[in-house]
């Protein structure tokens, strides 16, 4: 239970930085998706099943915590899929830093695109194709920029929470 609490505390910290600090350093309003980086770090340590569950929790938190006002469940859906995908390629991500960064880039692209797509389907007027083509690449760029700093910290945190040796993958 305390492990779960620690993982949730990590998510709250990520979210707080995301809405409270990085808007001062945003690129055209785009901030690093720290909650997603936490989910990716968990995926690299614990695998796809754990990452999908944590992704669901993280996504719901981003959906429901202030200042969110969009339809709830959209980030949850995006993070579940992104976390699962990161878990599938974790063997490569464990072995090389380049692969880990590539995982971040891919998951950032998938997550933001899925969120935008659900917005388009639901008729959210704020989501325009033109905006998606600005926000998605900038989001990938910012997540990749921060990954070398944030990802090692997240991975270290999840290893301490779960000291078993990382699963060997056949």
């Amino acid at each position, binding site marked *: 239970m305390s492990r779960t609490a620690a993982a949730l505390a990590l998510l*709250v910290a990520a*979210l*707080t*930085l*995301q*809405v*409270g600090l*990085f*808007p001062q350093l*945003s690129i*055209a*309003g*785009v*901030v690093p*998706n720290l909650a997603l980086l936490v989910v990716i770090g968990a995926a690299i340590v614990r*695998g*796809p*099943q754990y990452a*999908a*569950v944590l*992704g*669901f929790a993280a996504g719901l*938190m*981003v*959906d*429901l*915590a*202030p*200042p*969110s*006002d*969009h*339809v*709830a*469940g*959209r*980030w*949850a*859906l995006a993070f*579940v*899929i992104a976390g*699962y995908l990161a878990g599938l390629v974790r063997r490569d991500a464990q072995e090389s830093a380049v692969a880990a960064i590539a995982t971040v880039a891919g998951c950032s692209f998938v997550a*933001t695109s899925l*969120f935008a797509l*659900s*917005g388009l389907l*639901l008729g*959210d*007027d*704020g*989501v*325009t194709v033109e*905006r998606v083509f*600005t*926000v998605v690449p*900038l*989001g990938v760029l910012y997540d990749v920029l921060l990954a070398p700093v944030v990802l090692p910290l997240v991975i270290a945190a999840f290893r301490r929470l779960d000291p078993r040796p990382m699963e*060997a*993958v*056949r």
Partner: protein
Amino acid sequence: MRNHRDDERARTILVLLVLASISVISIDAGSGSDSPVDPVRTATGSVVGPVQSGFSAATRPMRDLGDTFTSDETLRDENTALEKENAELRSRLRSAGADTARASELERVNRVAREAGFETVSANVVGYESAQSFGRTVTIDEGTASGITNDMTVLNSDGLVGRVVDASPNNATVLLIIDSDSVVGGRLGSSMELGFLTGDGDLSGDARLSMDALDETAKPEKGDSVVTWGSRKGVPYVAGVPIGEVADVDTDPRNQSSTARVEPYVDFSALDVVTVVVGSGASDDKTEAAGEER
């Protein structure tokens, strides 16, 4: 060891969670303004909101430090004096912007509100929505404990900021008027024509509002100021709050209507102290008068 059974279980969980997410989306999107998700939103806000407020308060000295380094003391004094003069020259409701001293900022906001006869609560903006969420909302550090409830008007010393869309005990979420979901009833300062202002949802800080006049023959003019027309009991917007200035006008010759592009007075990329109108102490005609002085 990972084996075939583990893979299968992970896939099952993935499918279940995707379905769960879609269910949440359906419930929230399908239930309109009275969503069962709203209480959960408020509960989450009551836990996460104070963390945002605390973080913002803790890092404020660092943010203010930037101002100290970037501006020379004498220049700042001169700036303040000039600004005071400027403010007197302008209409009573609008004051000069960009004063880094928070105390005078607060005083100005309160004066604006007092002159219009509102009961107000001051709050700080402690969180901004990211562009990845495609919305323009902020968190403020006051909530139902201070009397803030949904659909209250939020302004600052420059003009209208937005309205409250969700309030937890110590925090509230404010929908900015530049969000694409925001619609405000506005009145042109010169002709008194009424219209609706819709946000364009721009994410990068160069947002505009588009105003469609109710009376299609109305011709907004460039430089014309727009104020809120207000509604009965001041919900969601009280009357006479300055919104912005007409930047340009698109006329459609085919159906003789024109849409004005309005540049908001408020700088939404640098929100700090805001005022929430929690009650209108004045009678209706007094607030009307405040609107008509412009």
